[in-house]
């Protein structure tokens, strides 16, 4: 049994610690994903853990064990966020499993939701739209005009799965306090899939240009910075471009992790380097979008 410790605070950045401890893929031994000491997980954390479980299932490996958080209320929050109901399909759960079902709270705009086909994207966008209008205005003091772009960004990010991943994935949208990095609340969209990743998706059309330098980092950069998709149609690849434009206007952030690299477009409030390479490998692709509250809010 290979023990994989889950960081105390699991988010898009600390996922790197989890990935660094993954054994070579496919794992030779059964995994024990140990979240016993985990105190908090962001939407990016939830969707990434499910991606790991899904990837293991898709390669036909034995179901990994997942030790649930021991701290009071943490596992309960994981249930409320919709994580546990899906985790049960991929992990053998250990610890006290709360009976609580996913529930609407002021922090959860969208509980952890699977994306398999384009009709799922319709459902997600439709479900979230009315609720997000109220919450983005009330909790983040954002203008009504921000809400349309929010839905567009959510739709495009989810479509990356149905259009490019070659398998299903997960989305979750929460509002929470970014006390340390931002000093105010933010809405976070996390989308993760267990698919082929950016490098393989773009390899046939782009790798030749880069020769030996072709890598996960360059593949993400090609898509995110240069708006290039595997399709040659000029209308393709524009979903990410439109999302970037929207985020630039509202001082938001997008970061994409795929394989062993992460590329982001950091706003002024964030110190993440634009590209980080040489990370531990993690299956599929993970996209995180952060839209901060207006400065006067929260």
């Amino acid at each position: 049994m290979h023990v994989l410790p889950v960081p105390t605070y699991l988010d898009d950045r600390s996922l790197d610690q989890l990935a660094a401890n993954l054994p070579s893929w496919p794992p030779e031994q059964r995994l024990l994903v140990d979240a016993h000491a985990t105190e908090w997980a962001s939407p990016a954390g939830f969707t990434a853990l499910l991606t790991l479980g899904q990837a293991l299932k898709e390669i036909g490996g034995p179901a990994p064990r997942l030790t649930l958080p021991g701290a009071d209320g943490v596992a309960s929050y994981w249930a409320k966020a919709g994580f546990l109901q899906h985790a049960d399909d991929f992990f053998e759960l250990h610890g006290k499993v709360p009976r609580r079902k996913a529930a609407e709270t002021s922090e959860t705009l969208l509980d952890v939701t699977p994306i398999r086909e384009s009709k799922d994207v319709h459902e997600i966008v439709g479900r979230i739209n009315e609720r997000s209008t109220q919450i983005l205005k009330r909790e983040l003091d954002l203008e009504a005009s921000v809400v349309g772009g929010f839905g567009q960004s959510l739709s495009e990010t989810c479509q990356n799965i149905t259009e490019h991943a070659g398998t299903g994935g997960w989305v979750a949208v929460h509002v929470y306090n970014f006390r340390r990095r931002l000093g105010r609340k933010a809405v976070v969209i996390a989308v993760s899939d267990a698919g082929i990743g950016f490098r393989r998706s773009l390899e046939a059309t782009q790798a030749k240009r880069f020769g030996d330098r072709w890598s996960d980092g360059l593949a993400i950069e090609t898509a995110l910075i240069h708006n290039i998709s595997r399709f040659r149609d000029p209308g393709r690849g524009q979903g990410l471009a439109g999302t970037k434009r929207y985020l630039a206007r509202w001082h938001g952030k997008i970061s994409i992790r795929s394989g062993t690299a992460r590329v982001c477009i950091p706003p002024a409030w964030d110190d993440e380097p634009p590209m980080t390479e040489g990370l531990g490998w993690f299956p599929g692709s993970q996209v995180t979008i952060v839209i901060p509250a207006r400065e006067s809010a929260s």
Partner: protein
Amino acid sequence: MSAVIRIERLLHETIATPYSDLVTRPTGAAVRQRVLDALHEAAGDEAHLDFSAVGLVDFSCADEVVAKLVGQLPDLPVLRLHLSGLREDHAEAIEHALRCHGLAVVAVFVDSPRPRLLGTVPEDWQVVFALLSEMGRAPAPPVAEALAWPLVRARAALDALAAGGCLCAHPDDTFELGAVA
């Protein structure tokens, strides 16, 4: 004559959804096919794509439904294609998609009867379009005169707008905005 094509109705004929959001590329492609069918059934020079009951429009659908149709205009059974009932967030996605293809379209917003050009619109086109929306039907010389431009410059802008389906060019060498005005 102009046909009005209600996009939200076509959306619901295309997919079973309780929502009115025009999202995802496959949905956009399917709706575009419905619009093409409707255009073939409708008679007339102009068609209006009515977005007034549409919720969200994402970038992929804006590309599939609007940019690809406008790009196909020479092959369509209408001479001009206009958008109506737009909101600012619709326009943002549509404008982005049109610019990727170097295209332009005439649009009327829910909150204003004044038609606007969306997409890749050179400055001369904007100026001529705005003037013609005030003047009504006119030939090139008074347009050039009103703008203090050489006739050839005004003529070039009018012809380009007409070629892109943004103006109606009459056989008597006059131009107008058409039914959208």
